[in-house]
């Protein structure tokens, strides 16, 4: 607690004091400058960098204000979650826990569907507080009881057509909790130092197909109440509501997640009203939906080996056991690469791409533990279900998958001119964002004409990147084959990089295709034919330490597509692969000699980053 208070004091001070730049040694011009920023009538001096900096944060997180998290034992509030994100110690499942590296920004995305119940559950004296259902939710002493309670009051109520357990007090209760979330988000905003974004989750799952979307607001012009799946379970109803918000001046977008659990419904051929996807649908969807959550605790949604057998890195945090539950069997339609390719095919058919998404990563933690993504620092994400190494090694996550198939989750990097709410929101809205599987790898990606094969400085490279082309998230509009400029730097506390790949998806004579190109590899391993000599950088399985000698800390390339065709609808995105590190189960086993994960659990992984695509959209 003391640490946290200290931190607050520092933040307050750093906001109030104007720092003077002193060049005592070898003076040189700075590209960054100090600017004035005003929020709620208070003025702040903040650093602005026209070349943009990568700010790392969380965009998918549940607290006790999500009723499922509450039942599982979480009592941390949105305010607690923001404190955790800034480095304060909190109690997770009764044990003190701290994030390894504080975040630059964060958003709490509690389920809108049960906000009202959460308010009643957490506020003594409110009507319904002492109801039987509320009491049993609050007092569930163990996992089995919690699950029984969850089934009895939530799942059975849903199945019986009741959106709410009996102690729900109506929309005033929903508004009360939404207001509390808003207050916590405002209280923790420290412009220039730590950004918070007003947000919530719309959790529609028709026939258990996961169509969830997280909804993000740019400023404090906010609705009285979020729109939940209870008010409308189809994405079109959500967009209709967003349209009304826009008419009121609210700036809002949403990001879908867990396409891997979508039963083919996230990237569909027909809308939920059974009408084929048309131009209006596509336009509306592209307007409101800006990023896909590439990875989170319930799996990596990029690709799976069974449909992409030629992708040697496809076997990564696929959460395969989720197929055993709810009939969420893998099909090609469920994965991000399919969605992107189907999107460019829709562009060919309709003139608009409904699936024009950038990438973000999140945890979806139900412990209020913002971006607790480091494998060596993982303490589970689902209350009592996965709180100990033993629980993680043998329990299932009820109705979802095995705990050992879950992972600590992903992270989002946003390229922004400053660490302010508007700049971070704009960065995500413009899709100048990237996802990582947890590490703080930074990746830049440009398409343009006339890039140099190498630059004498990082700044020259970035300036040229913007001056002669477009960054990730945009359309390349040139009339000749583009140069793709790609650059990545390692996580300072992780191993070196293995390689950078560019993944291309396109439509050729009506057929959807995709292909992976290796464009840079560490230790000069990229061969003329585009293949890469394997690298042996083993993890020490006794200590969990990764190899520190192999690979390179930075990779950069300017690449041209040998089969570029300006008249083809296409996209290009980037995947950066890191050298191997220990997975959390390895650290669990090292620290708890009695715990043994089943043999099919991978002990090491190759973490990665994904930069948002650049599109080629030929004019008809």
């Amino acid at each position, binding site marked *: 607690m003391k640490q946290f208070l*200290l931190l607050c004091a520092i933040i307050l001070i750093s906001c109030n004091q104007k720092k003077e730049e002193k060049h005592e040694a070898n003076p040189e011009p700075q590209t960054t400058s100090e600017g004035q920023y005003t929020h709620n009538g208070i003025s702040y001096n903040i650093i602005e960098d026209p070349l943009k900096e990568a700010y790392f944060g969380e965009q998918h997180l549940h607290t006790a204000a999500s009723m499922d998290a509450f039942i599982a034992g979480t009592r941390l509030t949105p305010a607690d979650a923001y404190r955790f994100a800034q480095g304060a110690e909190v109690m997770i499942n009764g044990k003190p826990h701290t994030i390894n590296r*504080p975040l630059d920004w964060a958003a709490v995305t509690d389920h809108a569907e049960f906000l009202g119940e959460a308010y009643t559950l957490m506020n003594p004296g409110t009507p319904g507080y002492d109801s039987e259902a509320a009491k049993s939710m609050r007092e569930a002493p163990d996992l089995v009881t919690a699950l029984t309670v969850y089934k009895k009051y939530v799942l059975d109520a849903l199945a019986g057509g009741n959106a709410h357990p009996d102690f729900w007090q109506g929309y005033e209760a929903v508004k009360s909790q939404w207001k509390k979330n808003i207050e916590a988000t405002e209280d923790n905003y420290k412009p220039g130092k730590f950004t918070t974004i007003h947000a919530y989750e719309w959790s529609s799952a028709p026939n258990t197909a996961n169509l969830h979307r997280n909804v993000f607001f740019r400023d404090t012009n906010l609705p009285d109440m979020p729109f939940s799946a209870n008010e409308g379970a189809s994405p079109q109803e959500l967009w209709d509501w967003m349209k009304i918000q826009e008419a009121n001046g609210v700036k809002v977008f949403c990001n879908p997640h867990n396409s891997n659990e979508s039963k083919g419904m996230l990237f569909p051929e027909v809308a939920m009203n059974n009408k084929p996807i048309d131009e209006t649908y596509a336009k509306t969807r592209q307007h409101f939906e800006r990023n896909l959550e590439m990875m989170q605790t319930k799996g990596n949604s990029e690709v799976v080996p069974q449909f992409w057998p030629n992708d040697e890195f496809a076997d990564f945090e696929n959460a395969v056991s989720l197929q055993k539950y709810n009939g969420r069997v893998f099909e090609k339609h469920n994965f991000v690469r399919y969605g992107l390719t189907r999107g460019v095919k829709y562009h060919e058919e309709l003139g608009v791409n409904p699936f024009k998404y950038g990438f973000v990563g999140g945890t979806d933690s139900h412990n209020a533990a913002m971006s607790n993504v480091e494998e060596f620092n993982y303490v589970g994400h689902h209350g009592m279900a996965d709180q100990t190494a033993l629980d993680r090694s043998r329990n299932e996550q009820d109705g979802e998958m095995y705990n050992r198939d879950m992972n600590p989750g992903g992270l989002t990097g946003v390229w922004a001119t400053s660490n302010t709410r508007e700049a971070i929101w704009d960065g995500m809205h413009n899709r100048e964002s990237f996802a990582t599987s947890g590490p703080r790898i930074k990746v830049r990606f440009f398409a343009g004409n006339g890039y140099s094969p190498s630059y004498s400085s990082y700044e020259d490279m970035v300036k040229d990147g913007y001056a002669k082309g477009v960054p990730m998230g945009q359309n390349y509009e040139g009339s000749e084959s583009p140069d793709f400029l790609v650059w990545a*730097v390692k996580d300072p506390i992780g191993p070196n990089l293995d390689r950078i790949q560019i993944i291309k998806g396109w439509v050729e004579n009506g057929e959807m295709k995709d292909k992976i190109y290796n464009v840079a590899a560490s230790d000069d391993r990229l061969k003329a034919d585009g293949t890469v000599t394997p690298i042996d950088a083993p993890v020490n399985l006794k200590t969990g330490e990764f190899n520190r000698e192999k690979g390179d*800390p930075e990779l950069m390339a300017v690449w041209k597509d040998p089969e570029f065709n300006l008249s083809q609808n296409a996209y290009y995105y980037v995947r950066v692969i890191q050298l191997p590190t220990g997975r959390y189960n390895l650290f669990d086993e090292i620290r708890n000699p009695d715990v043994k994960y089943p043999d099919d659990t991978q002990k090491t992984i190759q973490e990665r980053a994904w930069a948002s695509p650049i599109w080629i959209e030929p004019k008809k």
Partner: protein
Amino acid sequence: MKNILKEPLVHFLLLGFLIFGYYYLKNKDTKLEDNSIIIDNTEYDYLLNLWKNQWQREPNEQEIKAFLDQYLRQEVFYKEALAMNLDHNDIIVKRRLSQKMEAVSNDLSAMIQPPTDEELKAFYNKNKDLFKLPPAYTFHQVLFLNDENNLDNTIKEVKDNLNKGLEIPKDRKTKLSIPNVWTSKEATDIYKTFGDYFTSVLDSLPQKKWVGPIPSGFGQHLVYLSKKELSQIANFKDIKPYIEKEYQYQTELEMQNKVFEDLMKKYQIKLTSDKIPSDIKKSYQN
């Protein structure tokens, strides 16, 4: 007198008196029959106000029905439970009652007047540790990658040149995107980019001189430490709103403890179990 008014126990007793007084008056005219539950005007107004306080508006008919239902349900079960002596030594009842008592003492903090400037200053002076800033560092760094050719000689050469006042070589400016100049940065920020080893040695480096190499996750760094701002107490003026929040929080904590301690004095604590470690036993002896 002023001191007595400030005494938490006095607040507590006063509040208790009000609560019991309310119930006394409320029940005075009601002939209590064990198997009847009466909702008279007083009771109804009480429930209505409870509802209105919570929702800040008038309830509609459905909502009135709902809170009456809820009250009756609770009352019926409550009376039955009392009749069956279920309250006696029940752990849940104990917990709820003690929580209720604590909640009453928490409410006392709502009675605290906002502090005056003097009180705030006194609090600040008394608790300076709470407002201490961690040390901050201002430094320049130049990065060399571990696999560069002739690494040791290059580092030495660049270090000599820098110490002669030459500029940072162009190809080492913002190398790997890491800024060369770091101004008044705290350890947690430095750790995010340079990792723990670099951060831990920074404090012991000589100042105003290029030194190194110092390793990080990226490679080897030459470092020119130009300023160390020692841990210092933040200026009262600059963080006044923060001190106010802190004052409120700490006073609340203090008051909760005070009430607990005062109440404890009313009881003689006898730890007769021989299984309690003796050190712990001692701590309960006044």
